[in-house]
C-alpha cells in the first residue's frame, strides 16, 4: 500500500450510531477522507437530543481499525476439512457469494422439505446471536427473514441467560416492568450500588449522569468484592464477601422495618401501591373474598376484612386480624375455605420474616461490620426524604432520591432472586419504586410494547398488573419442550414473548444436555439442529466451560457463521459469510424513550446507521445477504411481508394515511427497503407532518420528537390504573412453584427440585456461596485446594464489543490495572510469593487459565478477578495477548443453575506462580 500524504480531495463527517454494547445507541460521526474512514468523532448535532450529548465511549473509537483490520474475512469461505475440532484446521477456502448462499439455502431448503420441527419436537434451525440483543442493531432485515421462516431455536446462547443480569430481567419486569433497573440518577441523592458497575458498562449516558450527580454531591456506596472503576468513583467502598449480597440487603430491610418501623416509612405508598395490606392465611396464601376471589385487606374504617379494591377503605398495613370467613386459592386453583382464621398483613409477614436478619447476623455472613450496614441503612432512609415532592412537566410527584442498584453476578444465579426482591422491597418501603429520584425500570423485553413500557401495564389478577407466565397448569404446561433450553417447560416467569423469552431461558441447559442429562430425564432426547446460524456471537469464548462448548459446537451437522475474522466458534463452521461491518452498511433503528442501561431521554425517534465507506473486499450488507437467502429459500413474499409489517424496521410501512410498503415482485434492494423505513418512521413520529427519505437521513442522521420526562416513571401509570406492585409478598410465585413442581413430578422428574426451592413468598437466606463449595466437593475436589473466589468484571474497552481483535483497544486498555491479567490482593500475593507481573496459573476443578499477576490493594484477600472474556486461541491478534479467562475454568452445572435458569460468574480456584517476569 502506498503512503499518501497529499492534501485530501474530500472530507466528510458521516453521522451514524454505535450499538456495540447494550447501553447503545449512541451518536457518532465517521470522518471519511477520500473514501477512507480515518476517525470516529462525537456527533454534536445530536448533543441536544442525546442524553450523552452526542458522544460515544472508547469502544467506538476502535471501529476504524475494525473496518481495516487485515485479519478480516473478506470473501465467503467454505470448509474443506470435514473433521471438526480445535485441533482440526478447517481448511477454509474462498468461494463465490453464489456458491456460499446456495450452500446455506440448500441446507435450509432441505429443512423446509423435512419440516421445521424434528422428531423430538425441536426446531431444525437454530440461531445464535451475540450480546444482549445488540446484534439486532446490525443485522438489518434478518428479523424479517426469521419471522418468515417460522420455528427457530435460540437456545444455544452465547452468554445471555448466564452472563446477563438474568434475575433482574425476569423479576424486574415482573415487579415493575424493569427489564433492567436503574437509579433515577439525575434526581438521586443516595445510591447503594451492589456490584452495579455503571461507570464501566452503562455507556456514555450512564457515565455523564453519574458524573453530574457526583459534582452535585450525591453519595454512591459501592458494595463489591473489588474496587472497580465504578467503586473508585464512589464515595464509599464496602468490600463484601462474594455472593453474600442477599444477607447484606436483608439486613438493610431489617434496619428499616424492625429498627426504624413503619411510622418512618412511606405509608401511603405501601398501603396504596403495594400488596403490603393483603391478608395472609397461616398456610401462606392470600385470604380471599369467598365470592369475588379477591385478596382481602383489613379496613381500619369499618374494622372488617374487605376486598383490596373496596372504595373508601383504609387498609391496615401492620398487624394480624381475625376473619370470620375467607378462602385461599392454592396451586391448580385448589380452593380451601377458612372460618375464624387469623390473617396477617403481608407487611406484618415481612416484618416477622426479616426479624432474624439483623446487621449483626449479616456481619458474620458478609464480612461487613454491623455498624456499617446499620449506618448505610439509616443514611438510605434519611436520604429518602419521605414526604418531599418534585414537579415534573407540571405534575407533582413524590421525590424519593434513593436507589439500590445491582450488578451482574449479584442479580443472576443463586441468590439473585433474593437480591432483586430485597432491593425492590427497599425501594417500596420508602416509596422510591418508580418515582423520581428512586429505582426505575428502563424498558421491557418479555412484555409488549418494547418501545413504551407503560403500554404493557394492564390490570391483571389480584389488583396487580397483568403477567404472561408460561402456563404451569395441567392442561397447558409444555411437557415436551419446544426449545433445547426448555424455557417454557422450566421457567414460568420468562414467558413466551418470542425470541427474547427463548433467549432468556436456561441457555446452559441447551449446551449441557447435549452431553450428559439427569438420570431421571423423561422428556424427548434433545437433538442437534440440522442448521446452526451464528451472527456476531462467539460462545466458545463467551460462555462457560468453553472447552466443552467448543466440542459440542464441533458436532453440529451444519454451521454457517457470519464471520468478521476466524474465531473460536466459526472455527467449526462449514460456511463463513463476510458481513459489511458497522461503518459499511445501512440500518435504521429506534432511539430515545427509556432504555438500558441508563438511557433516559427527553426525546424519541429514529437513527440511521449508514454506509460511511464502501465494504472491504467482498463483504456484503447483511440486509443484502438476508434478502438473497429469502429469495433462495422461496420466502420472498413472507420476508417482504414481514418487512412491510414493521419487523426489522421501526414502524409498519403501511398505516393510516401513508403507504410505503414494498412489492416483493420488484425485489427491492437494501437501499429501497431503508428508504421506505425512513419515510414510514418519520411520518409516524411526526404524526403525518413530516416525511424524510434515506438521503435526508444520510445527511442528518436522526429524527427526534420531544418526550415528557414523566414517561421515565411507572408509578403515575400504576396510580392511574389503580394497580399495586406485587410486593413484598410473593404469593403468585409460591403458587406457581408448587404447580411447576407437581407437573415435573408427574413426569417423574426430580432433577429440578433444588430450583423449585426458590419459589417462596418471602426469600430466606440459604448459604449462597456454599452452593459453589458443595458443587466442588461433589466432584471429589478438596476445598482447601481451591481457597479463592474467582470473579470477573467488565471493561469498557472490551465489554460486548467483540473487539478483542482490535489493536487500539488492547493498547488503551493496558493503561488500566488488571487488563489481560489476574487481579489479586497485594498481601495475598506476597504470601504466595507472587510479584507484580509474574505469570500465574489459576486453576479450578475443571481446568486452568494463565495470565500475569496484577496486584492491587483494592480487592478482598480471598478473591481474584479476571477482567473480560478472553483466552482466545483462534481469533487473530486476540490469540497473541495471553489474556486469561474465567470462562475457561467455570463449570456448567445443574447444581449451579437457579430457578430462572441462570448461573453466575464465580468459581473456586487455587493460584500459583508458574514463572517470574523476565
Amino acid at each position, binding site marked *: *500500500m502506498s503512503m499518501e500524504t497529499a492534501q485530501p480531495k474530500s472530507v466528510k463527517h458521516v453521522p451514524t450510531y454505535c450499538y456495540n454494547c447494550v447501553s447503545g445507541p449512541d451518536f457518532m460521526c465517521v470522518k471519511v477522507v477520500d473514501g477512507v474512514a480515518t476517525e470516529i468523532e462525537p456527533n454534536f448535532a445530536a448533543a441536544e437530543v442525546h442524553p450523552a450529548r452526542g458522544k460515544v465511549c472508547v469502544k467506538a473509537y476502535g471501529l476504524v481499525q475494525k473496518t481495516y483490520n487485515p485479519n478480516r474475512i473478506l470473501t465467503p469461505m467454505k470448509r474443506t476439512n470435514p473433521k471438526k475440532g480445535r485441533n482440526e484446521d478447517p481448511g477454509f477456502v474462498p468461494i463465490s457469494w453464489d456458491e456460499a448462499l446456495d450452500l446455506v439455502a440448500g441446507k435450509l431448503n432441505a429443512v423446509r422439505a423435512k419440516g421445521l420441527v424434528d422428531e423430538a419436537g425441536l426446531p431444525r434451525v437454530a440461531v445464535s446471536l451475540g450480546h444482549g440483543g445488540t446484534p439486532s442493531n446490525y443485522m438489518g432485515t434478518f428479523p424479517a427473514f426469521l419471522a418468515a421462516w417460522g420455528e427457530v431455536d435460540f437456545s444455544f446462547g452465547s452468554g445471555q441467560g448466564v452472563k446477563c443480569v438474568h434475575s433482574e430481567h425476569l423479576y424486574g419486569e415482573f415487579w415493575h416492568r424493569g427489564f433492567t433497573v436503574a437509579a433515577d440518577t439525575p434526581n438521586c441523592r443516595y445510591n447503594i450500588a451492589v456490584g452495579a458497575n455503571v461507570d464501566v458498562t452503562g455507556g456514555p449516558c450512564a457515565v455523564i449522569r453519574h458524573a453530574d450527580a457526583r459534582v452535585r454531591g450525591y453519595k454512591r456506596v459501592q458494595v463489591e468484592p473489588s474496587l472497580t472503576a465504578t467503586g473508585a468513583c464512589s464515595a464509599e467502598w464496602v468490600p463484601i464477601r462474594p455472593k453474600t449480597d442477599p444477607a447484606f440487603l436483608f439486613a438493610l430491610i431489617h434496619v428499616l422495618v424492625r429498627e426504624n418501623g413503619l411510622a418512618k416509612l412511606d405509608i401511603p405508598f405501601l398501603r396504596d401501591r403495594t400488596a403490603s395490606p393483603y391478608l395472609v392465611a397461616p398456610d401462606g396464601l392470600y385470604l380471599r373474598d369467598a365470592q369475588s376471589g379477591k385478596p382481602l385487606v383489613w379496613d381500619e374504617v369499618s374494622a372488617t376484612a374487605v376486598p383490596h379494591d373496596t372504595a373508601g377503605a383504609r387498609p391496615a398495613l401492620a398487624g394480624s386480624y381475625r376473619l370470620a370467613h375467607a378462602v385461599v386459592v392454592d396451586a391448580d386453583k385448589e380452593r380451601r375455605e377458612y372460618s375464624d382464621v387469623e390473617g396477617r398483613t403481608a407487611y406484618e409477614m415481612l416484618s416477622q420474616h426479616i426479624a432474624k436478619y439483623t446487621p449483626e447476623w449479616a456481619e458474620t455472613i458478609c464480612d461487613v461490620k454491623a455498624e456499617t450496614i446499620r449506618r448505610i441503612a439509616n443514611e438510605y432512609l434519611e436520604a429518602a426524604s419521605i414526604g418531599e415532592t418534585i414537579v415534573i412537566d407540571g405534575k407533582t410527584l413524590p421525590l424519593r432520591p434513593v436507589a439500590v442498584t445491582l450488578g451482574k453476578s449479584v442479580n443472576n444465579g443463586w441468590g439473585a432472586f433474593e437480591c432483586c426482591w430485597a432491593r425492590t422491597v427497599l425501594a417500596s418501603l420508602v416509596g422510591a419504586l418508580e418515582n423520581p429520584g428512586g429505582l426505575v425500570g428502563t424498558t421491557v423485553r418479555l412484555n409488549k410494547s418494547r418501545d413504551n413500557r407503560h403500554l404493557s401495564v394492564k390490570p391483571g389478577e389480584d389488583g396487580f398488573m397483568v403477567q404472561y407466565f408460561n402456563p404451569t397448569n395441567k392442561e397447558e404446561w409444555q411437557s415436551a419442550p419446544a426449545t433445547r433450553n426448555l424455557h417454557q417447560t422450566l421457567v414460568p416467569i420468562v414467558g413466551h414473548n418470542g425470541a427474547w423469552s427463548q433467549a432468556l431461558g436456561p441457555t446452559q441447559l441447551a449446551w449441557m444436555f447435549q452431553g450428559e442429562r439427569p438420570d431421571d430425564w423423561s422428556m424427548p432426547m434433545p437433538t442437534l439442529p440440522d442448521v446452526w446460524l451464528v451472527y456476531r456471537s462467539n460462545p466458545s469464548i463467551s460462555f462457560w466451560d468453553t472447552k466443552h462448548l467448543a466440542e459440542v459446537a464441533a458436532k453440529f451437522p451444519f454451521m454457517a457463521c457470519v464471520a468478521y475474522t476466524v474465531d473460536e466458534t466459526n472455527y467449526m463452521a462449514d460456511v463463513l459469510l463476510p458481513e459489511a461491518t458497522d461503518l459499511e452498511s445501512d440500518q435504521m433503528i429506534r432511539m430515545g424513550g427509556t432504555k438500558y442501561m441508563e438511557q433516559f431521554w427527553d426525546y424519541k425517534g429514529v437513527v440511521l446507521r449508514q454506509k460511511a465507506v464502501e465494504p472491504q473486499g467482498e463483504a456484503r450488507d447483511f440486509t443484502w445477504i438476508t434478502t438473497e437467502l429469502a429469495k433462495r429459500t422461496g420466502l420472498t413474499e413472507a420476508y417482504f411481508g414481514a418487512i412491510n409489517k414493521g419487523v426489522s424496521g421501526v414502524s409498519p410501512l403501511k398505516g393510516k394515511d401513508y403507504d410505503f410498503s414494498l412489492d416483493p415482485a420488484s425485489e427491492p434492494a437494501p437501499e429501497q427497503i431503508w428508504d421506505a423505513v425512513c419515510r414510514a418512521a418519520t411520518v409516524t413520529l411526526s404524526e403525518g407532518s413530516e416525511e424524510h427519505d434515506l438521503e435526508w437521513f444520510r445527511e442528518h442522521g436522526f429524527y427526534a420528537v420531544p418526550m415528557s420526562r414523566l414517561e421515565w416513571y411507572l408509578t403515575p401509570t400504576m396510580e392511574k390504573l389503580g394497580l399495586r406492585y406485587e410486593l413484598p409478598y410473593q404469593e403468585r410465585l409460591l403458587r406457581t412453584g408448587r404447580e411447576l413442581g407437581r407437573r415435573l413430578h408427574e413426569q417423574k422428574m426430580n432433577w429440578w427440585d433444588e430450583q423449585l426451592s426458590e419459589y417462596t413468598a418471602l426469600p430466606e437466606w440459604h448459604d449462597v456461596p456454599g452452593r459453589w463449595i458443595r458443587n466442588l466437593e461433589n466432584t471429589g475436589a478438596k476445598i482447601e485446594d481451591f481457597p479463592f473466589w474467582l470473579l470477573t468484571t467488565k471493561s469498557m474497552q472490551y465489554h460486548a464489543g467483540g473487539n478483542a481483535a482490535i489493536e487500539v483497544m488492547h493498547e488503551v486498555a493496558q493503561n488500566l490495572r488488571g487488563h489481560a491479567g489476574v487481579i489479586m490482593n497485594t498481601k495475598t500475593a506476597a504470601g504466595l510469593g507472587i510479584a507484580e507481573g509474574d505469570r500465574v496459573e489459576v486453576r479450578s476443578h475443571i481446568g486452568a487459565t494463565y495470565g500475569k499477576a496484577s496486584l492491587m490493594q483494592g480487592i478482598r484477600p480471598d478473591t481474584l478477578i479476571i477482567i473480560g472474556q478472553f483466552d482466545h486461541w483462534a481469533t487473530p491478534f486476540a490469540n497473541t495477548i495471553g489474556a486469561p479467562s474465567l470462562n475457561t475454568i467455570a463449570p456448567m452445572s445443574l447444581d449451579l443453575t437457579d430457578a430462572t435458569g441462570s448461573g453466575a460468574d464465580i468459581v473456586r480456584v487455587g493460584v500459583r506462580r508458574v514463572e517470574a517476569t523476565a
Partner: protein
Amino acid sequence: MTRYVMSIDLRRCVGCQTCTAACKGANATPPGIQWRRVLDIETGEFPDVRRTFLPIACMHCANPPCEAVCPTRATTKRADGLVAIDYDLCIGCANCVMACPYDARSIVHEAHFAYGDTPMASEAKRFDPDRIGVSMKCTFCVDRIDLAAITGQIPGVDPEVTPACVNSCISGAMQFGDIEDADSSVSRLLKETQHYRMHEELGTEPSVYYIWDQS
C-alpha cells in the same frame, strides 16, 4: 492576550480511555504512542483504598522546560500559550523529552503499524514521515486552534476548533478555553472549584488545571 488552558475535573473522570483513543484517532499516533492517556492510580491499603484516574498529556507550560533546552528552536511557545514543535527543525536529540517533567514527549524512530509492518488504509492515509525521528507530543490539536483564527470560532465552545480529547470526554471532565477571558467556561469553572496544577513547584506554570473539589 489569549492563553488556552484545559481543566480536568478529577471528580468526573472514570478512567475510560475514551480521550486516549480519540486522541490516537485524531492525531494518527502509532501503536504504543499516546500523546495523552489516563492513569489508574491506587493508594492506601485494603480496605482503605482509593483509586484515582488521572488524565495526562503535554501541559503546555507557560514556562516550558522543553522549549528552553531545545537546541533547534523546534519547540516554541506560542503567543496563545500552546507549546508547539516544528517537525522540520527537530533533530530528535530527546533533550526535550528529558526536560519534560510530565512524561509528555516521545520519539518514534521507525514506522510501525497496528497490525505489523503494513499500514491499514486508514493508517496509510495519514502516515506522516515527518514525524519519524523527531519529538512528538500533544499539540492541543493545534490545527483546530489555528482554524479558529480563520473561521472566528471559539476553541472550547465550537467543537470543530476544540481538542479531540475534550470533545470526546463522556464524563464531561474536560473544558478548554482562554483563561485570560474571564467569561470563558473554563475561567468560570476554575472560579467555582478548587484545583491544582501538577508539579507547580518546578516553576513550569502548566496550562492544565486539575479540579478536585468545589470551592
